[in-house]
């Protein structure tokens, strides 16, 4: 079919073809003008609040380009004196509105407000400064909020509502008193709705919502404590995210450099969470085969995403029996490391386990009561990808030029199945690899489940082994997950196994990763993981170090010891009316 001719728009004299862009702003950006704005997010409804995408459209006057549909023949000017003056004025108003002391802000260097002010050459603010002190809320383990830095672009509100279907935060009050807050103006840590996914922080253009980095100090202290050994492990997605902060192209795995950097930071043992991901697959997929055979609470739901698990507990507890009892890789790694340490004669509390995660919810997960043994947590500290970058920078390590190093054995070995955990669809694909071989010993390695690697909101696949048909589905984003569950409940969808990740795109797109917009970077990062996968063993049960655990630290797959260390239980947290 021939592509429909949609016409052209002239932007600053440059003719740009309309190719179904959502608004004029996208067309302006396509024309090569990187118009920095705050409130437009490609996957959210158009909001039109920041008024920084202003342009003059001939015959129509000054308009916010995010709200204008491109039409053939439009002539657009983005650099007239008037447009520049208006954009500058709105920026100046924002700068006066809050506590924008760049040197004291964790977002410095990665802040859109700072960038715009610099790009526009603003050196003076003509207006009264309204807020000069910070209003920090660090009650949530996952996130810190500082409303004094908030520019009210509403990205967080809309993401929580539109993408996650939760609405844990919203606008309150009006006019100059308007602010974004939780229900009943509670601290974030007290919110009954927040599942700690952090997608709000992922879209925050300034330093108002950020991952909670306060644990870094404790990690540094543990490293410097001669009585403690500190083990660190990095999640699959971290290796394709961290590099971006140091100028490395998105999607290029930097696990070798990370291993080197972690040793330079003083960690005693440097491991890979992918090891635990393989272990997760062994346990979770075995559980699935049992449940599938016994028709026990199907569809089974994955349980490795803590925000998702928290969501089920808070909003759809009727699906708790469907959740796999398998812990997340991070929460398998901790007890295994500590059990191993104890077996070798150490004391549990003398091993500090630090997890480097692409995720803010992991911070919440590590602090759950059920993951403590005698007041000692299975995972002591969680640091996000960006938090690790901060540590690397603070130590003055020239990351980009580090030579690659290997992870320590045995908890540093992994298969492709463990690595692709970081992308939405990866857990399911790894589980299918395991199940295919478990159900049919003659099954060949190398089968790729292409349909699960797409970026569509809802993906499905079917595994056929003889007469057996296993139907699986994958989605990411909690609103999508809710929709899928509603369909399951209504009998409109029939699956045996469903993978859900809270962050659209999976862990590579987590809130602990470097900030990004749109799908391009997410896809690059996932691609990086699949490229790694291709170099490694195919399925999790091929991880000899994982299988060697059984009989040593663990008993047998699904056995009592394995159950104690590798499985968990859930509890409804739904508010009773």
């Amino acid at each position, binding site marked *: 079919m021939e592509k429909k001719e949609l016409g052209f728009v002239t932007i600053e004299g440059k003719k740009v073809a309309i190719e179904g862009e959502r608004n004029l702003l996208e067309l302006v950006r396509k024309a090569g003008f990187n118009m920095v704005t705050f409130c437009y997010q490609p996957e959210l409804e*158009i*909001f*039109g*609040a*920041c*008024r*920084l995408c*202003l342009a003059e459209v001939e015959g129509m006057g*000054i308009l*916010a380009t995010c*709200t204008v*549909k491109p039409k053939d023949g439009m002539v657009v000017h983005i650099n007239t004196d*008037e447009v520049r*003056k*208006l954009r500058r*004025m*709105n920026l100046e*108003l*924002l700068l*006066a*509105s809050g506590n924008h002391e760049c040197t004291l802000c964790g977002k410095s260097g990665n802040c859109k407000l700072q960038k715009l002010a610099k790009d526009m050459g603003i050196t003076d603010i*003509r*207006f*009264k400064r*309204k807020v000069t002190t910070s209003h920090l809320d660090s009650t949530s383990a996952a996130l810190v909020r500082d409303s004094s830095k908030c*520019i*009210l672009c*509403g990205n967080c509100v809309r993401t929580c509502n539109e993408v996650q279907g939760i609405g844990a935060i*919203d*606008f309150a*009050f*009006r*006019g*100059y*008193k*308007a602010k974004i807050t939780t229900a009943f103006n509670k601290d974030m840590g007290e919110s009954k709705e927040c599942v700690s996914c952090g997608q709000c922080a992922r879209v925050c253009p300034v330093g108002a919502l950020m991952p909670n980095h306060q644990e870094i100090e404790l990690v540094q202290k543990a490293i410097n404590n001669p009585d403690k050994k500190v083990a660190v492990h990095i999640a699959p997605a971290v290796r394709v995210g961290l590099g971006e902060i140091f100028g490395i192209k998105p999607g290029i795995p930097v696990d070798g450099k990370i291993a080197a950097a972690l040793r330079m930071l003083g960690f005693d043992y440097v491991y890979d969470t992918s090891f635990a991901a393989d272990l997760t697959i062994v346990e979770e997929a075995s559980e699935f085969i049992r449940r599938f055979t016994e028709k026990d609470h199907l569809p089974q739901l994955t349980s490795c995403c803590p925000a998702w698990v928290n969501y089920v507990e808070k909003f759809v507890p009727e699906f708790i029996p469907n959740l796999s009892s398998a812990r997340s890789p991070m929460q398998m790694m901790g007890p295994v490391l500590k059990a191993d340490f104890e077996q070798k004669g150490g004391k549990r509390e003398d091993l500090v386990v630090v997890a480097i995660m692409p995720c803010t919810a992991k911070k919440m997960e590590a602090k759950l009561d059920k993951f403590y043994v005698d007041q000692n947590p299975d995972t002591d500290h969680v640091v996000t990808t960006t938090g690790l970058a901060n540590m690397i920078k603070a130590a003055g390590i020239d990351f980009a030029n580090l030579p690659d190093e290997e992870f320590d054995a045995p908890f540093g070995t992994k298969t492709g199945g463990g690595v692709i955990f970081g992308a939405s669809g990866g857990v399911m694909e790894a589980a299918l690899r395991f199940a295919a071989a478990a159900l049919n010993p003659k099954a060949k390695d190398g089968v790729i489940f292409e349909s699960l690697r797409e970026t569509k909101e809802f993906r499905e696949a079917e595994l056929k082994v003889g007469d057996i048909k296993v139907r699986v589905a994958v989605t990411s984003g909690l609103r999508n997950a809710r929709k899928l569950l509603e369909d399951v409940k209504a009998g409109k969808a029939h699956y045996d196994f469903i993978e859900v990740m809270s962050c659209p795109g999976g862990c590579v797109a987590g809130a602990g990763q470097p900030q990004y917009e749109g799908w391009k970077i997410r896809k690059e990062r996932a691609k990086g993981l699949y490229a790694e996968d291709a170099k490694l063993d195919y399925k999790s049960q091929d991880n000899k170090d994982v299988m060697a655990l059984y009989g040593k630290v663990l008993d047998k797959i699904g056995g009592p010891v394995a159950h104690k260390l590798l499985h968990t239980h859930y509890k409804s947290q739904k508010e009773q009316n």
Partner: protein
Amino acid sequence: MPNKKIEEIKKDYKEAYKNITGRVTICGGTGCMAGGSMKVYDAFEAEFKKRKIGYCLNITKGCHENYLSISGCRGFCAAGPLVSVNDIFYTHVKPEDVAEIVEKTILKGEVVDRLLYTDPASKAHYKTTAEIPFYSKQERILLADCGRINPEDINEYIAHGGYAQAKRAYLEMTDEQVCQEMIKSGLRGRGGGGFPTGKKWDFTRIEKGPKKYVICNADEGDPGAFMDRSVMEGNPNAVIEGMMIAARAIGADEGYVYVRMEYPLAVVRMRKAIKQAEELGLLGENIFGSGKNFKINVMEGAGAFVCGEETALIASVEGKRGMPKVKPPFPSQSGLFGKPTVINNVETLATVAKVLEMGAEKFAAIGPKTSPGTKTFAVTGRVANTGLVEVPMGTTLRQVIDDVAGGTTENDGTVNKAAFKAAQIGGPSGGCLTKEHLDVPLDFDSLKTVGAMIGSGGLVVMNQNTCMVNIARFFLEFTKRESCGKCVPCREGTDQMLALLTDITEGRGTMKTLETLEELAKSVQKSSLCALGKTAPNPVLSTLKYFRDEYLAHIQKKECPAGVCKALSKYRIEAAKCKGCGMCKRACPVQAISGEVGKPHQIDPKKCIKCGACARTCKFGAVTR
């Protein structure tokens, strides 16, 4: 299907009404009620009982004596509480006047002269409303029944021809015909925007159904505006009939009246009228046997000015935060709950049946061609007769202020037409009109050419003792508070404009302040998301345009020419007038005044806190500022 045909109701009512010997109508508008009109009502009832004079409170078949009822707002709020006995019109009536009214007027047919309206200038007494200039200079079409009929009795509305046009629209006209008739009439939205009503309906009519909505925007928020409130309180059935006709025109089966919660009486009267209409089968299913349904819900807003903006209003009805959305899509395409929706304001909807009644051509012939019809104004401020007036579009500002409202007054209330300084039209979003605009016709297009807007019809008259910088500050204080906070220029810009204006009125202003203020005002106007922000700087820009010298006086001379801005006022004692009595010295709370008895006193400006106690105490007018 109505239980009883409206023609029968009309006939029965008129039959029963014939037996009435006298009609006492007490104004039940908010203004008069605040002035104690319900106590007057009770006094009448008590007096009738005491004297065993027959009376009824409802028009029914057996009723054959005096009919005591309330009415809606009669507009002449400055003279309330208002009472009429048949044609005789009494003002400022107190409960203690009632015995005399009953004795003289009801029993003997005599007039109580002292309660008649007295013209402040000519001192002439007027017996009936028809004689009073305030009424005789108006052209009351929309308000014709407002203040005349009992707003809580649907039968009287029907007896006056009510619901006949709705019936016509449902039974004799097609949806397209109704739209065409409205387009032909040229009726433009009275809410402020002035968009042609018929066109709006037609856009919605052609959208795909089946679910569509009609919303009556009764979130009248401009300070000083009370047209919509008066219409809802005085003739709620006219609003309902307008909504029914709109529903017929676009194919809606459900409507909402979104009333601000600060209008409790309007809410009560609207609800009562809807209930009565439902009982008569005028609302509900199978209206007039047409097979069409229409129901109306009343919803109270939570008191946000921005909810008068249609997209914010829709969000509020949906239970969301009242924040405007970007348009398109327009409500006609995707409005309430995503369905095609028509939103009209109260006055527009209340005019609809009148348009059909008189015919599009006749309506179009009133006033200027591009702004036909009449318009109501809520006239407040420094005028002799504040209140609600209705005049043909195109009437000049001078006619409204001088002829209808009795002229500009001094601060003490005496009429002095020359004291007129400016009029703020269109509320906080409007602009100010000055002496040079007194003969500008008040209509959508003429006002636009002078940088003002008709808005919803608030008209605040100001005299020479008004500081225009302070006025701009006053309106901005309002819009700053009422901005929803969504877009940057409105949320932050109004706050900063106010800060700059405060700097000027408190003597901290420099020429740089003025320059920044002007640039900011223009910027907020150009770059805000919705009409609230786009129009918020109007008071600043129009006062800057017409009264720049006042700004300059504040900045360069640190003086407020009108003597309003406290921080700039300098109290002085005129030696020639001072008798040295020492009263001011004793009144001064900070011992800033010194002087020997019998000799002129002095004020120490360093100590003075500008409280004005000295000026108020001085019997000789020696203290000036």
